[in-house]
């Protein structure tokens, strides 16, 4: 794993990189327009346009810099913040309150989220039964669509879901990046915390299979505090309330703020553990150029997921808990960390190899110099366009942007309505 990653990037002419970035930005902007604006009318189209412009600006910042930088974190946190008011306002408008009532359970109308996949996948596979009172189809927050998004995530972003897509993770990601310095060092506990995460997954999956009850959602999910919860009516439900409020405050707010680590995502979330287990299905991973690495450990401290340590650096790949957020890219003083396509034999690709050959030939050939220069530029642009450094953020941000379209564009619509008419309604959203 001593292959050069950075030289691969550096080998491209800056203009080719800029051109490739411009092409990718144009493609992304079209995608954002298609999903957020087209087909909407009036205020909804305005809300969608705001969201599309924001996402496109984020992608432009990433593409032009060649690394996620802070832009990803801004997108991720804004997406999470947009989700909460949209979801809560939707619940209050539909049922008059945030709490799940018997009516929603009986009618199987409780929104289904990706984390519930971990509680539902075994009962669904073995008993053809969904152990969650959700619609099977009909909206994005129902089982079959969520199953589809999960399967799609496995073969595209893998655990990158937790760094680019998850509308809960953005809360913790934002909180963990707020303090300048960690006041609590959890770095040494990384391996143990990773094991806890897998243990939670095993417990949740098996307990849900045994009881046909979504154990994690019922007892542990801390995000009930910002989405929907069961009204406490008896000792059991009061206990559940204490547990999930405690977990939210402890693992989502206090510990991330103290340690700069995503403690809930890396220890409690069973979906994250499942994504880690299956991350090898994704074609991307975060690689460390072992020849350039000076083992300073800066990346270890910057990683919110305990995915980088001495062992990871020596093998040249971040551990499977890596959410591909790219915080470590900025931390590395040698620029030795980057996205890499899995199973790539080296950092070099056919297009950059052909480009350097064309350049050599162009320099040697007097008559065909212009043609070779044009070919070199085209191949360098293609190389930059097809590089994981550009394609992974494109894929991951597309995923995040599209999945958040419903609620983020709706929140933007609500904000537009608030400014225009003083009402926080989603009126006009189609």
């Amino acid at each position, binding site marked *: 794993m001593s292959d050069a990653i950075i030289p691969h990037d550096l080998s491209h002419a800056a203009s080719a990189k800029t051109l490739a970035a411009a092409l990718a930005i144009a493609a992304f902007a079209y995608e954002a327009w298609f999903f957020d604006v087209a087909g909407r009318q009036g205020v909804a189209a305005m809300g969608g346009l705001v969201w599309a412009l924001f996402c496109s600006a984020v992608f432009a910042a990433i593409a032009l810099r060649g690394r996620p930088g802070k832009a990803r974190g801004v997108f991720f946190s804004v997406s999470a913040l947009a989700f909460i008011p949209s979801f809560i306002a939707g619940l209050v408008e539909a049922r008059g309150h945030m709490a799940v009532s018997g009516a929603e359970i009986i*009618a199987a109308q409780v929104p289904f989220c990706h984390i519930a996949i971990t509680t539902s996948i075994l009962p669904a596979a073995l008993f053809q039964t969904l152990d969650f009172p959700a619609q099977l189809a009909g909206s994005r927050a129902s089982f079959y669509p969520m199953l589809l998004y999960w399967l799609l995530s496995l073969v595209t972003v893998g655990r990158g879901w937790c760094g680019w897509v998850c509308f809960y993770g953005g809360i913790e990601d934002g909180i963990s990046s707020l303090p300048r310095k960690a006041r609590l060092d959890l770095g040494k506990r990384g391996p143990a915390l990773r094991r806890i995460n897998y243990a939670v997954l095993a417990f949740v999956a098996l307990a849900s299979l045994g009881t046909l009850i979504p154990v994690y959602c019922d007892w542990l999910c801390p995000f009930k505090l910002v989405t929907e919860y069961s009204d406490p009516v008896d000792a059991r439900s009061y206990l559940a309330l204490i547990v999930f409020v405690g977990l939210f405050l402890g693992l989502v707010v206090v510990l991330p703020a103290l340690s700069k680590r995503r403690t809930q995502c890396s220890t409690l979330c069973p979906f994250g553990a499942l994504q880690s287990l299956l991350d090898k299905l994704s074609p991307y991973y975060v690689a460390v150029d072992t020849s350039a690495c000076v083992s300073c450990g800066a990346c270890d401290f910057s990683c919110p997921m305990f995915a980088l340590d001495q062992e990871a650096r020596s093998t040249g790949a971040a551990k499977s808990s890596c959410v591909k957020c790219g915080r470590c890219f900025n931390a590395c003083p040698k620029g030795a960390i980057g996205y890499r396509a899995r199973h790539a034999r080296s950092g070099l690709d056919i297009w950059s190899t052909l480009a350097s050959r064309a350049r050599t030939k162009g320099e040697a050939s007097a008559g065909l110099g212009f043609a070779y220069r044009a070919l070199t530029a085209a191949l360098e642009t293609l190389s930059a366009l097809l590089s994981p450094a550009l394609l992974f953020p494109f894929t991951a941000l597309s995923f995040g942007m599209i999945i958040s379209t419903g609620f983020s564009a709706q929140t933007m619509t609500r904000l537009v309505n608030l400014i225009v008419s003083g009402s926080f309604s989603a009126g006009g959203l189609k």
Partner: protein
Amino acid sequence: MKRTVWALGSIFQSLLLVAVAASVPVVFINSSYIAGRFAAILCLNVSPELSGGKVLAQFSAPLDDDDGPGGYEYPLGGAYEKGELDITSYTVRFPLSRPAWHAKGAFWQLELTFAKATPNGLAGGGFRAPAVHIYIGIYGAASGSTESAFGEGELVRFDPDHPWDYVVSVDGWSPSGEIKSADGSYSAPVDTTWNAQLRRLTLRIGLDKAPALLSSVLAGKETWYYVLVGAYDGAREGHFAAVRKDANLHDGGGARDDDSPRVFDLLVPRGTSKSSELSSEDSGKGILALVEPVIVGGAEKVAQPDRAAALAEAKSAETRDAAERAQKIAALPSPSKADADIVGELFGLGLEERARAAVDMRLATDAHDPLALAYRGALVALSASRASGLGEKMSLVAAAYRDLDAAAGGAAAFDPKERIAVLLCRGNVSSAVPNDVFGRAAQGAADFDAARLLAKGSGDAALENDCLAKAALAFEKAGRTEEASARWATLAGKESLDPRLRLELIDRGY
């Protein structure tokens, strides 16, 4: 050789990464279709522990039949709105012995869906106008009754072959319902849940402390049900409002005499009709109307329709229509300014270019003409179906909806015929475009429903039936199968039907 393999591998990898990037939007665009395939392959069900038990039987009831034996009017008080007494489906679930997640003890769940729901802001039950009595008979019971549990109550008598053993009474003004036995030895509250969005009333009958006979439903005994809906009147026995010749604030109207049933809607077995059952009273002899139950677990004798004959009839109707269309096209005058007056006919005959010219003529006179806007929207949507690029399709459909929505908004004060045309234009587009992208199928169904009511008002039975079928199809597309079933059931109760609709019904088991 090694370099060739590396080069091919590198090209393959580039293509793979591009495919991965492209797969995200492509999968999302087609997510409804793919999720539908998942549904077909995986055939999952929500755990009955959560939803109230496996469905044992489900009955669909026709829409707009909340008029008793025919011609009943709701009481005139402001608390009653047309459709609130109209049952559209009734579901019986298997009893649950060990329910999970927020439920207490064994229970048996029954569900009723109504055509219209108006929230009751004043009382705990959640709904307002209906009072519901469900008489339950259980096979093997030594005794039972064929008379009302509420004195005058509903003013009906029950089938002597199917006496009832328990009756559940529910209304929206009490915090819970009540179940009591025919002999009066047992009574208990019934948990009720009202879901205004689904217009569904859910009843949970506790079985832990119930008598052995009621608990025996856990063993899967054959059961039968008389489901009766009356207008709520808290001052009457059983809370069923009286129905008189003329309606007043508290009593319904349209009855032949004071012995007429106080039932506005009733669930009837297939092969019988609600109006014939409720009009079977003989007031001269003092005989009340006889009602029959729907049976669960018994053999229902329904004649099987002849599908081959229905298919042949449908094909011949299709041929006849095609010939008529050709005749109409041949008989059309040459294009002229008069086309502006027959834009609907031109559109209906599929003469798109001529219809487009006619639309332009109308819009040149009045840029806000709702009819012209509706047809322009429909024509633009048609052109979207032929467009090649996804972006172009999206833009065209969005443009079509700008016209269609403007037309629907502007057509409120229109005459019914033209309003129907506007609603049909938007409804047809809404049920044709992909629901996962535009999410308009339910709105299309609502448009067809509105057009149906207008057609009914103008006495056009064929159009009314056509709208019913289109509304049912649109609801199916929107995933709202219960509402679709209610419309198919309504259609099944119609006497003269287009052969193509008859075939649709046969294919759906009606």
